[in-house]
């Protein structure tokens, strides 16, 4: 039967993964290349096998084969084909298989790349990637198997889940499945989990390279860093996309007008991103100045460890969260894996510390090196604050016995100032020269952006003065505009220099400038995207308004300069087996009609779960976000609405898109980049002979 085939494919994949890891190490230690080659081939076969497994599960979901326990769990007849396929990652077993499959994809990709100067690292890269993969396949195979089926015991009338037919039981196929949790039946389901998983699993490759470099004693050289940087960029890019998509999805669906809840699992996604960003910047110092080799290893190990930590708490339920999967028995084995990974990498790093010594010299405290280091400190400070806040409830319960909640107010107050400092640094940091920045020159570069940002802030202050005289908000606005203007000014200066020297017009100059320095100007675009997102955050955080009230037909609810007039309510059945109650309301701004909004409340009959679907009026200035909270049960004369006014929120999404475009530009390598060398001139004897190129 098809699912037995799936099980066997999974089993063979597991065996091959274990073999591959072992053969890689064995081949390297005994210098027998054929074992390393064999390990490499095994890794490719594992990917093929896992692809087969994934396809089988998708088939089961598409064909609504309810005999398979997983299919009965996450899909139902009412769900569309599209949703059924995304249900592959809707439950614990399927998502674990999906995770393993993605990791095997990365492993296969790294196997088939050209190994040139880093050939020595390959066996150990295989060891780490396949070893980790073997663990995840093992979890899927032995503990949380998507191919388990349902059996019925005629004697006790019990339904049992098992891989093989238990004695005396018969095949059981329910009429219909449970279906995906209604909150997951959304377009975001197709984007958010896959991109996030690509992000998380992708980090295993740079981690494997770091470990391999440590083991082979080559961690002091630059080669592995260069290779690692590309893979980290890919993983980081996808994680960024995943985070933005997750936020947008939450905003659309969760019904409280927010995009980030500081939930433990959301935090677990954020932390690798933070350290990954620190790594991407810090690597530039190693490339340019040969410094911070130890630190970069620490960062990459930390990034991967945090991603493993994230998936650990998601799947084992040690911290309560809205995102957690249903509990399974994988806690203890997962914990051992976590312990081995963390302690093992730490021990290895300390053992090989001597291979990582670098010459650290600093010309001036006012230099790009210092700026980068300060930035790293800030990122790590934020990571620590988030980490601490996430695990503190556990510590508190352990020590005092009382359960506490560490919620958004904590995270916002503690990380807010740090993020603000980062935004400031992001704006002015690129102005710093390597080695030593002349203060006068810095002042000159900052003059116009500073003046511009001051003007913007003053205008904003007067525009909002009657309603919101928040000094903190204005400070935030000033910071964001300073960062944005400084970055834009860089574009202007660069383009102007080209105009003057090459005689091109502005747009051609700008185009050439960006094309020839993709990494740099892609980076600036990313910074611009961040500034836009920061603007959205400031607007939403400080200037948000809300109101809730009950109104009868024809009556209105008012908030800020908006009025919502209730027109009526109607009820009808919808797709997916839900009953919909929909309100019609007219939105007015400053007395003028804007549009008709239809917030609704869907009730999923099978799951007995209501889902609130907001109606939103979006402009760059603000979102008016309307929810239908309740209605009178006798007649339909009155309804309760909740209205949020979220100023500048769309800048978060626009900024996110800009951010991603910038990353794509920066990551786009070409022959040009490889040839364009950046010379490091160090008046140290001998070094000149081997000028390091980037």
């Amino acid at each position, binding site marked *: 039967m098809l699912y037995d085939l799936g099980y066997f494919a999974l089993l063979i994949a597991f065996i091959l993964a274990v073999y591959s890891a072992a053969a890689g190490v064995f081949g390297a230690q005994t210098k027998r290349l054929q074992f390393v080659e064999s390990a490499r081939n095994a890794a490719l076969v594992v990917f093929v096998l896992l692809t087969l497994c994934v396809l089988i599960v998708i088939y089961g979901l598409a064909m609504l084969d309810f005999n398979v326990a997983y299919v009965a769990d996450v899909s139902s007849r009412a769900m569309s084909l599209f949703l059924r396929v995304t249900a592959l990652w809707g439950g614990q077993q399927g998502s674990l298989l999906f995770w393993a499959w993605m990791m095997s994809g990365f492993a296969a990709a790294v196997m088939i790349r050209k190994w040139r100067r880093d050939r020595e690292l390959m066996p150990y890269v295989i060891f780490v990637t396949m070893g980790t993969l073997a663990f995840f396949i093992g979890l899927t195979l032995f503990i949380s198997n998507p191919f388990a089926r349902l059996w019925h015991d005629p004697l006790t009338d019990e339904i049992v889940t098992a891989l093989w037919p238990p004695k005396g039981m018969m095949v059981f196929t329910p009429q219909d499945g449970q279906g995906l949790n209604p909150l997951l039946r959304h377009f975001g389901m197709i984007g958010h989990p896959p991109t996030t998983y690509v992000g998380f699993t992708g980090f295993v490759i740079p981690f494997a390279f770091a470990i391999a470099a440590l083991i082979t004693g080559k961690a002091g050289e630059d080669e592995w860093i260069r290779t690692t940087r590309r893979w980290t960029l890919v993983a980081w890019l996808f994680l960024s996309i995943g985070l933005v998509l997750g936020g947008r999805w939450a905003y659309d669906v*969760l019904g*409280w007008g927010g995009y980030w*809840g500081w939930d433990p699992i959301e935090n677990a996604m954020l932390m690798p991103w933070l350290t990954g960003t620190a790594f991407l910047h810090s690597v530039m110092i190693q490339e340019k100045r040969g410094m911070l080799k130890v630190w970069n290893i620490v960062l990459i190990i930390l990034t991967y460890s945090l991603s493993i930590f994230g998936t650990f708490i998601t799947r084992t339920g040690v911290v*309560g*969260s*809205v995102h*957690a999967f249903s509990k399974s028995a994988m806690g203890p084995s997962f914990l051992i894996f976590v312990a081995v990974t963390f302690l093992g990498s730490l021990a290895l790093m300390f053992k090989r510390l001597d291979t990582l010594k670098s*010459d*650290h*010299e*600093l*010309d*001036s*405290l006012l230099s790009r090196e210092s700026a980068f*280091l*300060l930035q790293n*400190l*800030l990122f*790590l*400070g934020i990571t*620590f604050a988030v980490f*601490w*806040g996430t695990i*503190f409830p556990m510590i*508190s319960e352990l*020590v*005092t016995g*009382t*359960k*506490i*909640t*560490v*919620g*958004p*107010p*904590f995270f916002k107050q*503690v990380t807010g100032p*740090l993020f603000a400092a980062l935004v400031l640094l992001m704006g002015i940091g690129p102005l710093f020269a390597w080695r030593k920045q002349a203060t006068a020159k810095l002042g000159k570069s900052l003059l116009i952006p500073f003046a511009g940002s001051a003007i913007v802030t003053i205008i904003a202050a007067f525009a909002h003065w009657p309603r919101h005289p928040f000094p903190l908000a204005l400070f935030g606005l000033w910071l964001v505009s300073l960062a944005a203007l400084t970055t834009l000014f860089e574009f202007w200066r660069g383009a102007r*220099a080209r105009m003057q*020297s090459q005689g091109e017009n502005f747009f051609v100059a700008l185009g050439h400038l960006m094309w020839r320095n993709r990494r740099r100007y892609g980076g600036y675009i990313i910074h611009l995207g961040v500034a836009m997102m920061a603007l959205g955050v400031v607007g939403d955080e400080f200037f948000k308004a809300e*109101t809730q*009230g*009950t109104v009868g037909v024809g009556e209105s609810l008012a908030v800020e300069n908006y009025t919502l007039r209730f027109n009526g309510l109607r009820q009808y059945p919808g797709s997916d087996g839900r*009953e919909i109650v929909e309100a019609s309301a007219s939105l007015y701004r400053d007395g003028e009609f804007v549009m008709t909004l239809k917030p609704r*409340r869907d*009730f999923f*009959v099978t799951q*007995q779960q*209501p889902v609130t679907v907001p109606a939103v009026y979006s402009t760059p200035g603000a979102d008016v976000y309307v929810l239908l909270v*309740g*209605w*009178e*049960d006798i007649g339909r004369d*009155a309804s*309760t609405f909740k209205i949020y006014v979220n100023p500048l929120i769309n800048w978060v999404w626009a900024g996110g898109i800009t951010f991603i475009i910038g990353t794509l530009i920066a990551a786009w390598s070409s022959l040009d980049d490889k040839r364009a060398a950046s*010379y490091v001139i160090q*008046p*140290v*004897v*001998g070094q000149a002979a081997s000028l390091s190129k980037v």
Partner: protein
Amino acid sequence: MTRKIVLSLLAIAASFMAVAVVYAQSGYPTDDDVNRVAKQLYCPVCPNTPLDVCETKACQDWRADIRDKLAAGWTDDQVIEYFVQRYGERVLAEPRRSGFTSFVWFLPIVSVAIGLVVLAQILRGWKAKRRAAVAAPTAQADDIPPEVLQRLEKELKKIS
């Protein structure tokens, strides 16, 4: 089939019961007042859900409780304190700044401060090394081949 219909009707009926019974909006406390207090609290049952947005029946009961207490003249703080006594400290959205939980606040702040100090020390140490290296002139500017220097001059002229 009939069972399904009956079940769905029951479910719909239940959904109506589960929806908030609407109160006449006659002044204090308005929904906004209730939400102002509910915002500072978390649902004692559902994980990580603020009380003003949680939609379960239990949360609706709690918001009704808040409304009754506000109407009876309790202050915001009194209502919150009552909730903490009744349901435990985990209903507070923000951990207290006293007792053991103060630890959650000051450790991050302290570690960033320590980090800054450590960073300053490290940077100063590097600067000292640099000065020492400069003081011991082992620099050989002639190490750089002249063609490279020429090209450098050209590139620098281009971009400055």
